[in-house]
């Protein structure tokens, strides 16, 4: 009876080893099967024109996109597949989770060849070695400069842009028939209005800290986040407490003290505009859908009013296609990007499905009649790219918190900007 366990253990080991061997064996058989069937398929389809002697394996291209953008590329893909015989697989990944997912899956060998993302990911992903540079080559001139700048990190272009977005001014045409040229004009227009709850609605007050929406106040009179030369940022040169930034912040403080700009968060600003009790609302083109879906408010879009006598330079975000440095089909992926997406048809499909201001010159010309889209495009042309260096991570919190303090009247404008700049400097220099 004592010996028996040994026998069973031995038996078990053999059993386990056989199983493990079977497991891996089956995989190879599977792989073999698919390869052969693919070869058969390729040879039959290319028979007529084939000149190479080698049998080609089926080429797959994996693209990660979120639901909305997937719809856009799905329109272009059948044409690409027909023309090339490449099998394109679209995998849906939540846009908010995409950057982290790509960063983990790529190095593990399970990432996409191409993914669709935003310009503020570029610095971090490129620093981590996840992105492959892209040469637009002859197509470079088809795209507006600000879009390419947004996807450029340390002087290298890392993506194919397809849309830009920057904030502009929505105004209620019943309350304010004409767009204000300056913030003071907007305030003066509100002085005559009755039954309004707030004059200029911008998120970034109350509990809605938002450096992105507040940045026009920093940039209008010459303030900046990081100085840049030729698209290369210097994270040690922080301009949040420069004279320009402070005079913009003082203009903001005056608006707050005059009661023109209530301390609202995003939903507060949006709801009041949609209720018709707020004549001006500053935000981006992503709300065009919500406005088109309602019929309470008559509205139009204008460029941002001047602040402290300067033209505000809003942050410009760029949406684009990125190529993973872990892709094993780079030639195929670049062919897809440059020969199919970077064309008028590809870009038109992206615009039709996504609706953000286009970056391809031909599409810009084609949409010139759309007042809202071209105004948002013009606002983006005034703007500056969101610095895409990883150090930007330290800016959102510091700048947003301190701008909110001005909005809430807890700190004076100058102190707030000095605090913001100091916090960024310390974080960068640590």
């Amino acid at each position: 009876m004592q010996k028996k366990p040994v026998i069973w253990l031995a038996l078990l080991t053999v059993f386990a080893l056989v199983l493990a061997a079977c497991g891996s064996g089956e995989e190879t058989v599977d792989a073999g099967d698919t390869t052969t069937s693919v070869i058969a398929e390729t040879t039959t389809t290319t028979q007529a024109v084939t000149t190479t002697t080698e049998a080609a394996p089926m080429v797959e291209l994996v693209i990660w996109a979120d639901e909305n953008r997937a719809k856009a590329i799905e329109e272009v893909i059948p044409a690409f597949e027909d023309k090339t015989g490449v099998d394109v697989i679209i995998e849906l990944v939540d846009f908010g989770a995409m950057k982290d997912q790509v960063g983990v899956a790529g190095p593990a060998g399970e990432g996409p060849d191409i993914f669709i993302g935003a310009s503020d990911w570029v610095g971090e992903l490129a620093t981590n070695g996840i992105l492959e540079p892209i040469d637009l080559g002859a197509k470079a001139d088809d795209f507006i400069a600000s879009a390419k700048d947004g996807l450029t990190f340390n002087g290298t272009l890392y993506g194919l842009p397809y849309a830009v977005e920057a904030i502009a001014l929505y105004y209620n045409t019943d309350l304010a028939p004409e767009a204000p040229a300056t913030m003071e004009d907007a305030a003066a227009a509100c002085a005559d209005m009755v039954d309004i709850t707030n004059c200029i609605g911008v998120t970034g007050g109350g509990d809605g800290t938002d450096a992105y929406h507040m940045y026009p106040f920093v940039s209008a009179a010459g303030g900046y986040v990081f100085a840049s030369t030729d698209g290369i940022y210097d994270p040690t040169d922080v301009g949040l407490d420069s004279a320009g930034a402070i005079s913009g912040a003082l203009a903001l403080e005056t608006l707050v003290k005059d009661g023109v700009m209530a301390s609202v968060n995003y939903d507060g600003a949006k709801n009041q505009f949609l209720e018709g009790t707020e004549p001006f609302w500053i935000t981006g083109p992503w709300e065009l859908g919500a406005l088109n879906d309602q019929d309470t408010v008559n509205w139009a879009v204008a460029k941002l009013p001047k602040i402290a006598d300067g033209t505000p330079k809003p942050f410009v975000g760029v949406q684009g296609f990125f190529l993973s440095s872990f892709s094993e089909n780079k030639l195929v992926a670049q062919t897809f990007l440059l020969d199919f997406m970077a064309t008028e048809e590809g870009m038109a499909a992206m615009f039709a499905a996504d609706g953000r201001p286009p970056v391809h010159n031909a599409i810009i010309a084609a949409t010139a009649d759309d007042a809202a889209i071209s105004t948002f495009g013009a606002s983006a042309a005034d703007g500056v790219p969101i610095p895409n260096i990883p150090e930007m991570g330290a800016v959102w919190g510091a700048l947003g918190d301190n701008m909110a303090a001005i909005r809430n009247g807890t700190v004076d404008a100058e102190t707030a900007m000095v605090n913001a700049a100091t916090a960024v400097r310390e974080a960068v220099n640590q």
Partner: protein
Amino acid sequence: MTNSEGVTPKRSASSFSLSPGFWLKLVVVGLIDAAFIAAIPVLVANQSWMLFGLLGLNVLLINWAYLSPRSNAGKWLAPGLVFVTIFVVWPIIYTGYVSVTNWATGNVLSQQQVITNLENEVIRVEGEGTNLELAIYDGPEGLAFLARQPDGATYFGIARQSSEEPIEDALIDTTGIDLTGDLPDVINDYSKLGLRELLGIAGQIEALVLDIPGGVIQAQTTSSARLIQAGQRYKYDAETDTLYDALRDVTCVTERGNFVCDGQRLDPGWRVVTGFDNYQRIFGDQRIRAAFIKVFNWNIVFAVMSVLLTFSLGLALANALQHDKMRGKAFYRSIFIIPYAIPAFLSIIVWRGLLNANFGQVNALIESLGGSGVPWLTDGTWAKIAVLGVNTWLGFPYMFLIMSGALQAIPNELKEAAMVDGASAWRVFRSITLPLLLVSTAPLLIGSFAFNFNNFVLIFLLTDGGPAVIGAPVPVGETDILISFTFDLAVNSGRGNNFALGSAIVIMIFVALAAISAFSFRFTKRLESIYGN
């Protein structure tokens, strides 16, 4: 095994009968072993020694528990132990490991991946060099590239493997052939390949280059190419563990997960163990230390107050509903359960809206009663009150449920006896009800403390740590607790993400919580020994 015929099932005294159950056991354990053996190559290839050891231990435990005749209790404990090691022990060990590495933006790959990445880099010729038209031809001597520069200059020649030595006379003479318009379909013996054929051999084309005077031409897409200077930019030397940069002609040394060239760090870097640097930073860096202590203090206050408030409110309501003269008990019970029944993340967002200083219903109510609005989420003190208030609202139904049950379990005779002895209601509550309640519910209170100590969802959704502490050198809010502070620090550090620093703080939270819990359980034990049966 039926005993319809009145025969007792055959069961030998030995546990090694050849019953179906035994074979089933053997097969299941065998499958587990097989899965582990199949996983070994993957684990070894990824060099995950910790996971390898942990899984190995688990598999050994399973084998021993189910095959050894001497492990009776083991059979019942083994599944639990396996889950504890995989879902509790392993994450803690891994977090501990991450906290002693340099895992942050710029250092996420392995060294091998970084070297491959850098060695793929080529020295490109900017401007004209990025913009060549390309056609690829197939002929007797292999594949040939035809590249045309924007200025009209064309190059046609046999392509070679980029890993091979350059060919001196790769170019083929094309005089007399018109190469100005569309590129021709046939040149000499060479015929142009179509898109479909090209993409079928894309992997092969990627490895090819064409030598021209002053550089090499590399396919970028099937119809465009770029000009690069010959050779790769970086070359790694495994013997000396250095990297040579051909463009700047410098040798880069490895230093803490990065190649350093002339004192300049080269990105990307890789992950290495750097020891206790992150812990040193938490204590040594004045910026982080000051914020850390501030957050820690509020964290303790928040967790203790949350438990106290929910406990008192829950107990008070449970006590009130116990009273015989109370009417409509069922109605009140259902009302009190509502905050517990709504998913917390929804009601927290609703509360955030209700507490909005300008448009929230709470301030509207206060103002309609003649008061002035309260800056609920924008003033430090009020935000703390709001956080505690909302957490009490969220947490009291749980305590109410627990206390209702626990109160039922306290024998009425004890209370009656005390009443007969002349004790007041308050005295009965203080000396009989409360101590007996604590014996049974103290572990739950400790659990509630531990949960609230790390109540990330509440803080993140209600205030996101805000309002910010004005002038603080690191982004820290008045209502930040350690875990939300850690989240900000890990996700928005000075340079992208800093997972290693975040992990170091998480390990410290774990140690603090473990110590507090251990102390509390000891205290509970004392209660039990005094009041327990």
